[in-house]
């Protein structure tokens, strides 16, 4: 199938509260989809429904043979958790019955130094930890990567680097990317399509048609600004 993902009439509810209501969209294989929207619009809930971590109604169809890599939103890790980044990746290799060298390969893909990965995960900086989670996701040789706010808590140069890395993975590994983000400037420059969720409805289209002042005002209930430097 030309689409990596087809979602039709997806509804997710917690008790009587409906978070996602009758949502349908497709994601083309090898493309990148950014998911934006105000807090509480259901972005993370959508991801959890897509990976099957939450019960939902409607249909979520992944292309046959899809392997999902998931990079969750900032995890609640104790600073003194005695677990190094390398041990975390080696655990991943062991579960997949893959050789331990897979951890080294994944660290190379995300440009994370082995000596940094040898530190306890609670002591890594936000950007380093995101790279470690990305390395974890890449170890399964995924065809689709889901990122939930990959640049939250990361400084601006770090954000640019992470999005640069996404672009490289998309080109070199042929991955399909789904990215939840609040960084509208980066979304504008890097995403092929944008899914904008609000509490009332959703819009899907290329950044130039979705990231308009009027649409953002309607979705966020307030003006949302972003800056575009140069051409895409």
């Amino acid at each position, binding site marked *: 199938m030309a689409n990596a993902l087809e979602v039709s009439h997806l509804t997710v509810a917690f008790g009587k509260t409906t978070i996602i209501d009758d949502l349908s969209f497709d994601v083309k294989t090898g493309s990148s989809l950014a998911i934006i929207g105000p807090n509480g619009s259901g972005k993370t809930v959508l991801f959890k429904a897509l990976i099957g971590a939450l019960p939902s109604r409607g249909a979520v169809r992944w292309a046959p043979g899809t392997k999902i890599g998931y990079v969750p939103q900032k995890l609640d*890790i104790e600073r003194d958790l005695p677990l190094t980044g390398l041990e975390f990746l080696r655990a991943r290799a062991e579960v997949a019955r893959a050789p331990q060298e897979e951890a080294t390969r994944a660290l190379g893909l995300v440009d994370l130094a082995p000596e940094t990965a040898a530190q306890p995960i609670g002591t890594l900086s936000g950007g380093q930890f995101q790279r470690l989670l990305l390395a974890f996701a890449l170890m399964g040789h995924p065809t689709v990567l889901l990122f939930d706010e990959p640049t939250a808590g990361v400084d601006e140069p770090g954000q640019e680097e992470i999005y640069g890395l996404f672009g490289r993975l998309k080109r070199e590994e042929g991955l399909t990317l789904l990215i939840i983000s609040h960084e509208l400037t980066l979304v504008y420059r890097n995403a092929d399509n944008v899914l904008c969720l609000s509490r009332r409805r959703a819009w899907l289209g290329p950044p130039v048609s979705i990231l308009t002042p009027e649409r953002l005002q309607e979705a966020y209930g307030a003006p949302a600004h972003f800056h575009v430097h140069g051409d895409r």
Partner: protein
Amino acid sequence: MSLPAASDLLLPLGMAAAAGLIGSIAVMRRMTLASDAISHVALPGITAAMLIGANPVAGGFVALVLGAILVWSVEQKTRVPTEAIIGVVFSAALAIGSMLASGEELIEALFGAARRPSPAEAAVGLLAAVAVIVFAVRARSRLVITLVSPDLARTIGINVARTNLVFLLAFALTVALGLRYLGVLLMGSLIIIPAATGKLLARSLSGMRRVSVGSAMGSMLAGSLAAPALGVERGPLVIAASAAFFFASLLRRPEA
């Protein structure tokens, strides 16, 4: 005064190694208080078994397994925090257990007894200790990824609910192993204190497991050797030794 024979130390040391390994995961899962509370669930099982003339350790084990399944199923099906569920189950278990037992039996159930296990009991105990150790080693990767993020675990094909259940059952079996030697109150401590020492001293999972197992086995050995010399029960001495390791570790904690 006589020192215990090496064969008498085999089961306690195997049990301590199992406690050190299971404790490492329990402490990393932030189950420090919960673990202590779960162990108390054995009490009504022990006292009920005594009342009907059955093996008290078997009674305690049955109660622990039922308690673990109860905590797990409430955790799966409701949004009540685990700490709250365990708090309720623990208080109810203590209340029922103390209603069923007489004063002396209650003290024995809480703090353990000095009786030697029968050969059959020792063999079953050793097998159970080996089973817990094998589980803790073989399942370590699944357990670690699940405790870091259940969602991440799901995306790589780990059955999170089953992993949590099997861990709770292994925990229950570990507590049951120590009931005869340490009793309900002290066994929870042998699982938690050495692992807390490991967390203080180590910066890696492998380091934490080494310290935790070493501290649990060292405490068990020290308590077992000192008990006949001092003419006191082994259980409280074992826990006092593990607490001493913990406080000593506070002086040597590496900078994070």
